[in-house]
């Protein structure tokens, strides 16, 4: 069997057994990247040399009988929002086009410690802001199932590279759905863990109270394997949870008998694509067949999720992105342009000083339109006189949404439903309408607002051959059940094993 068709679990086992060399495995995926990335644009940076060197060391250690890590030889693609000490980290922004972090993100260190092989950095919406990957400063990612369509976002590169067999596993980040939605649109499995389950240290912040790193792979079992490595408390991230990390891979066997899964009737209201609705209802049927009970539940505040999210996230982003001022690192405008201080019409001296001119020009040149839009939204909402009406009110609704979940989880163990209202949409289809684009997060933002975990996996295909995603959500630290239910579903179905026909193979 070709390594590109093996699951992550199988690759790790094969390398450990000596049936597959880490170098051979890395080479296979690297050549698939080299062949396919031109059309898909999933990678911003591929580290062939580093990956092969790392794989060779692992092979040497294994041959010498030395211990190798739990992910030894597993190629991993990392979203370009996670800092890597050996590769530039750009956030798909001109602002950080040449930024080289001096350190690895905690997740990257843990992957390296576990002997995983980092093959490259994946494309994304600029600063993780977007749901289609069209906001990348370095070109959109194309959906491997239909190159004219978007892969979703913001972890579009991570989702697409797994869907196109360019990496068995990728790391994404999810602030409002950025792992689950592209996983759904690309027909792969993506897990957004509980807030704080994975350290955010070295994750370039978009919205700190919502950001969470998670694995994206072909199956829930592969996600479980990777989560075991990247989860855990980090003294360097005060918001990371101190809870111990279960052996997720060993908790998959138990059947679903007696597990109660909530279904929210509102999810099936107007706006949900009928083919998606059908796929989702069939998924419920599969889970029922596996022994689960499905109960209808109410989430009365869920409808406020998107507006709440689009206040809190931009507020935090406006502050998190203030550091990109051209003064210390990142893009700085031409010095002569700054010195002109040409905005004389502005009146006040402070505003047309070379310093302020440098700020304005550097940020104006460095950020794309969606990033600017969110910085402005957030700055406005936090301004004196507006804070109570926007940020403070959004925080109140956030508490209500959290309470909805607490109430719901009194009655059910999981909540199921669609990941997104439609299958993958055409590139350019929503770019002229920011509001329509914001609605792609409709089913996913609430989990971020509540800080709970969610997983997305394929539950069918449309007639035109586009994947349909199913989402499960669990109470805080409910990853074992999320993974077990998804894994059970994948033992009973083969949607996750399908491969895009058009992608290069």
């Amino acid at each position, binding site marked *: 069997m070709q390594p590109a068709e093996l699951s992550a679990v199988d690759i790790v086992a094969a390398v450990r057994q000596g049936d597959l060399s880490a170098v051979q495995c890395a080479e296979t995926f690297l050549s698939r990247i080299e062949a396919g990335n031109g059309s898909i644009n999933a990678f911003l940076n591929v580290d062939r040399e580093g990956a092969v060197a790392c794989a060779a060391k692992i092979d040497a250690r294994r041959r010498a009988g030395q211990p190798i890590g739990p992910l030894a030889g597993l190629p991993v693609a990392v979203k370009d929002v996670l800092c890597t000490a050996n590769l530039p980290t750009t956030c798909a922004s001109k602002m950080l086009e040449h930024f080289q972090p001096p350190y690895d993100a905690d997740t990257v260190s843990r992957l390296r410690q576990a002997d995983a092989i980092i093959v490259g950095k994946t494309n994304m919406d600029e600063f993780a802001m977007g749901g289609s990957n069209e906001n990348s400063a370095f070109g959109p990612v194309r959906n491997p199932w239909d190159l004219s369509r978007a892969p979703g976002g913001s972890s579009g590169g991570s989702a697409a590279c797994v869907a196109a067999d360019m990496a068995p596993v990728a790391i994404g980040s999810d602030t409002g759905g950025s792992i689950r939605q592209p996983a759904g649109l690309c027909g792969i499995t993506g897990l957004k863990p509980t807030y704080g389950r994975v350290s955010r240290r070295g994750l370039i912040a978009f919205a700190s109270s919502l950001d969470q790193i998670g694995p994206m792979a072909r199956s829930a079992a592969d996600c479980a394997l990777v989560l075991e490595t990247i989860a855990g408390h980090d003294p360097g991230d005060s918001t990371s949870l101190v809870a111990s990390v279960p052996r997720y891979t060993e908790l998959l066997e138990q059947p679903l008998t007696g597990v109660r899964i909530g279904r929210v009737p509102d999810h099936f209201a107007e706006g949900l694509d009928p083919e998606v609705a059908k796929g989702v209802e069939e998924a419920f049927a599969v889970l029922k067949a596996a022994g689960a009970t499905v109960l209808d539940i109410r989430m009365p505040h869920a409808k406020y999720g998107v507006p709440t999210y689009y206040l809190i996230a931009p507020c935090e982003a406006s502050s998190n992105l203030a550091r990109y001022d051209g003064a210390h690192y990142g893009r700085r405008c031409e010095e002569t342009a700054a010195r002109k201080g040409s905005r004389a019409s502005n009146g006040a001296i402070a505003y047309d000083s070379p310093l302020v001119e440098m700020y304005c020009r550097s940020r104006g040149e460095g950020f794309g339109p969606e990033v600017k839009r969110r910085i402005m939204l957030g700055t406005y909402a*936090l301004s004196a006189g507006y804070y109570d009406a926007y940020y403070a009110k959004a925080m109140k609704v956030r508490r209500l949404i959290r309470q909805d979940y607490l109430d719901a989880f009194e009655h059910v163990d999981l909540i199921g439903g669609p990941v997104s209202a439609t299958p993958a949409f055409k590139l350019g289809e929503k770019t002229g309408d920011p509001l329509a684009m914001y609605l792609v997060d409709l089913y996913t933002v609430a989990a971020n607002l509540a800080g709970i975990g969610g997983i997305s996996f394929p539950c069918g295909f449309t007639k035109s051959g586009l994947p349909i995603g199913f989402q499960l959500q669990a109470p805080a630290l409910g990853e074992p059940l999320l993974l077990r239910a998804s894994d059970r579903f994948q033992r009973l179905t083969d949607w996750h094993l399908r491969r895009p026909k058009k992608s290069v193979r």
Partner: protein
Amino acid sequence: MNAANAPTAAPYTTIVGLEVHLQLQTRTKLFCGCSTAFGAPPNTQVCPVCLGLPGSLPVMNRAAFELAMKAALALDCTIASFTKWDRKNYFYPDLPKGYQISQFDLPFSSSGSLEVVDPKGTFAPRTVRIVRVHLEEDAGKSMHDDTAGRADSRIDLNRAGTPLCEIVTEPDLRSPQEARAWLNELKLLLEYLGVSDCNMQEGSLRVDANVNLHIPEASGRIAKTPIVEIKNMNSFRSVERALIYEVARQWEEWQQTRAELGTMPKQTRGWDDPAGVTRAQRHKEESSDYRYFPEPDLVPVTVSPQQLAAVRASMESPPKQLRQSLQSQWNISAYDADVLVNQGRDLVAYFETLAAQVGGGKVASNWMQQDVLRMLKERGGAIADFPVQPAGLADLIARVTAGTFDTSRAREIFAEMVANGRSAADVVGAMEIAAVGEDELRDLCRELLARNPKIVADVQGGKEQAVAGLIGQARKQNANVNPGEFRTMCLEMIRTMGR
């Protein structure tokens, strides 16, 4: 004298409130492990966190928080059992994240007070209420290079992230003198507790003052002048001078414009120390809206009663308590106790050791006030570096008490002990100091009286003070002569001669 120097006589009341920023004496910064030592080459005490690099996250330094708690407890503040961090957003090149981690609506402590008492009584004891004390991170330093018209700025981020306590008082001070005295008391308190070195030159203590005047009108209504915030004061003396200037300026302006509080935005004025004036600073619109919101990268801080008790237990006695205990334990005056305590904890310890060894507070206090402090001042430096230990000084004092030599001779010996780090016995031996016997003294008197018939005649004529001329001659012949004894004996002899 300026009108502001005599507030009781002035036709207005001066109202002053202070805002003090204090660098805490921690080894490391508030949210990272970098050193806070002053004076290192620029940008050598930095890391991804205090540089605000993408992906970096702050982690609170609990030691800094506890030190801040000490400061707040010493100011009688209430410590909140739950406190959180907020972001204060503004752009400035020495603020690498584009925001400062501070505390906005839930400071870790509030509602305290600190009293200042002037033992000389130039003002009545004044209790100043503390509105709040909160903790925040310091910014870096901008250094502007104006040479050759380049107007370049250089940034040193060594200071960025240093823990900073902000202490805000109610407008309870009533004169520039009180403000200065209160700041001295605050500094002393914080130094005693080891919270801060309070070095204004190195920027570890910064003061802004808010001042306005309350002017009673004939109708009984009180008119209030607009509040002015004064910045850029680099010593307590300049705080006092700036306030004196500003009070006079506001009074003058009031007489011309009658402009009252609320009719214009709060003005910020900078103190120009060499020129001795305050100058209006450009109003910066962007500084007015900091867009505070809760810092999502940090978890709230809780303080349990046990943690609070532990911090309280670790605190040494504050100056106020020490002044009282010195007075009662060593029976010295309030003024003397004040002088000693104001010199710092080490000097108080020196005094207490000395007092215990000489067996009396008063004599020890006199030596401290008249000799040790004078010598310290002349030499410069701290009591810790003083060459004479309390035991050495106690030995010297014991010799005076025993009558071996008098106080003026003892001062000479002490000067020699300090100058060359020698013991009293050593100096006494080297200078061949020994009490002069009665016979020896009588021979000396006789000889000098015989040699100075005019002085004898003067004394006999009623000018007793003429005998002083003999004392100098006597000491020239024998340095050990006790001037008092010699004088008495001479007068006695002249009287006998006259019979």
